[in-house]
């Protein structure tokens, strides 16, 4: 070891062929796994969409969309020639969702305005930020229980109507509205605000006329996506809005069926009993009718949700305000 120039055997540092092959194999394995993961995820998506469309289309007709479930007995046909319908559930869904929009959009939007324009990141703002996060984690059924408990304590025992459902849904909708609006308000360039202040415009007018107007497409898109999220909620409405087979147009009184609850109710009742004579009658008694109705209502629900998603994305894309970055 006295030699000042050690001879280095560089071949020793060369990776062996099998080592290189092992690395390549690992690379390929992971590539295959990652692509397989994607394919695996596609299976349920395709299966859900396909079965909903193929099973739902059978019962989805004008009669189904224009009648409610009153006078429907077992699997027997109604005098109108159909097997009951979902008009009451569609109306219920629209009214309950409208109710929750009226509560949560102004509240969520103003809360976002407060967080971005007024709070200066103070303690209250941080507390609200934390609580909005907590709120977005509330399980939907707990929201339903809350709305039920609130109205039972304040209004009276056994209060179950569409508006209770709206309150439950708005609890789920507010965090989404706050978060998306906050993001959208934050990306409005500060130059616009400062230019407005420099012209002597009051803060309120700056916000309503300039900041909100600039952020509007993003906010609208966020709100539509929030609606799409709550319109499919079932569990809270099962508790808060109940179930009824007739059409109820009054949001503030009486039980109200919504589409998701209708799907669940039809599914949970299982097969209908049909006597031998009823099976032969025209139109016949259908033992499978409840599943068919559930699939058809599910198809209507999926169409509504996907349309809302599409509109939300299009609004964001088409009307986006060009900012400098």
């Amino acid at each position, binding site marked *: 070891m006295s030699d000042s120039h050690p001879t280095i055997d560089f071949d020793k540092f060369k990776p062996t062929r099998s080592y290189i092959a092992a*690395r390549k194999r*690992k*690379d390929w394995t*992971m*590539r295959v796994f*990652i*692509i*397989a*993961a*994607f394919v695996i*995820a596609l299976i*349920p*998506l395709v299966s*859900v969409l396909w079965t*909903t469309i193929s099973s739902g289309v059978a019962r989805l007709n004008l009669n189904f969309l224009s009648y409610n479930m009153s006078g429907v007995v077992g699997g027997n046909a109604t005098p109108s020639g159909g097997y009951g319908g979902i008009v009451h559930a569609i109306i219920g869904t629209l009214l309950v969702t409208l109710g929750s929009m009226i509560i949560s959009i*102004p*509240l*969520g*939007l*103003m*809360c976002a305005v407060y967080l971005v*324009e*007024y709070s200066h990141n103070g303690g209250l703002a941080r507390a*609200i930020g934390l*609580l909005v*996060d*907590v709120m977005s*984690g*509330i*399980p*939907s*059924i*707990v929201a339903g*229980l*809350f709305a039920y*408990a609130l109205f039972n*304590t304040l209004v009276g025992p056994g209060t179950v109507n569409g508006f209770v459902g709206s309150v439950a849904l708005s609890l789920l909708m*507010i965090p989404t509205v706050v978060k998306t609006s906050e993001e959208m308000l934050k990306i409005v360039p500060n130059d616009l605000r400062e230019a407005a202040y420099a012209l002597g*415009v*009051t*803060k309120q*007018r700056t916000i*309503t*006329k300039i900041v*909100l107007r600039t952020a509007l497409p993003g906010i609208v898109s966020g709100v539509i996506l929030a609606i*799409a999220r709550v*319109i*499919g909620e*079932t*569990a809270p409405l*099962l*508790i808060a809005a109940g179930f009824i087979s007739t059409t109820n147009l009054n949001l503030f009184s009486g039980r109200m069926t919504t589409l*998701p609850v209708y*799907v*669940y109710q039809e*599914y949970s009742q299982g097969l209908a009993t049909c006597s031998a004579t009823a099976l032969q009658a025209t139109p016949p008694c259908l033992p499978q009718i409840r599943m068919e109705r559930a699939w058809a209502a*599910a198809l209507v*629900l999926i169409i509504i949700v*996907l349309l809302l*998603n599409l509109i939300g994305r299009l609004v964001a894309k088409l009307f986006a305000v060009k900012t400098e970055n």
Partner: protein
Amino acid sequence: MSSQTTVTQNTTSGKSGDKVFKGLAYGAGIMILVALAAVTLFLLVRAMPLLTGSQKANEDTIVSFTGGQAHNFLQYVGPLVFGTILISALALLLAFPISVGIALFISHYAPRKLSTALSYVVDLLAAIPSVIYGLWGGIVLVPHITGFWKWVAQYLGWIPLFKGPAADPSRTVGTVSVVLAVMILPIITSVARDIFLQAPRLQQEAALAMGATKWEMIKLAVLPFGRSGLISASMLGLGRALGETMAVLMILSPGMSYSVKLLQASQNQSIAANIAAQFPEANDLGVSTLIATGLVLFLITFLVNFIARKITEKARA
């Protein structure tokens, strides 16, 4: 908002409008605090009879809920908490590797143009309402997966988890977790994808320049960067799975035990599904009991989300 503007336009100066608007914004912010306080308060008030009311009546309610298996609230809520956590943890276990795979596929493997389209597909998965997953799980998945579970029970039955005989129809914890995994997949994927896209480019290119294979590059430069993000993403997914009602309600054949036999029916039940199942027939005291279990669920999801938030905050700092 627009009515607000028209009112203030008529006044000579916007001062008063300014004040009103500021007040509204403050009010809305404070309303959030009030709303959450109200949620806790009203749930507590309605759950109160469980503590203050007659213990005999409480016991009767719980006995009637469980068919005599439980006699007090702790005995009642214990198996439910266990079932909830078991189902959600399994769903997370199934969804996590697949979500990370999809996220990597979108961020590093797929061509740019394709990856935006793929993100939409994942979002589509998130948009489908839970009741439709329940319907699909109950009618389509259960008959199709029964054969697979039977195979698992036959060959892996020596593992206590997969102890046979596999139930037919398989309205079991195993099937439910598969459906829940599909439901939480998009949440974990979208968070993971955003984080992988933020991984420092220079380090990735450096790794490739040193001769690393693509997977080695991901392992060296992408995954370590995304670790805390992945943890918080899976916590968010877990939070969603814990509160999921409809899929569990529509697929699982419920039971009230501390069993981990995934392939047998009538073993476990989740809190959320139990509330939805018992609520329609519950009397006043029954509702109080169910609301108390709801509070327990709220507490669990709160903890999970809180931990997720703490981890993301730490990662940002």
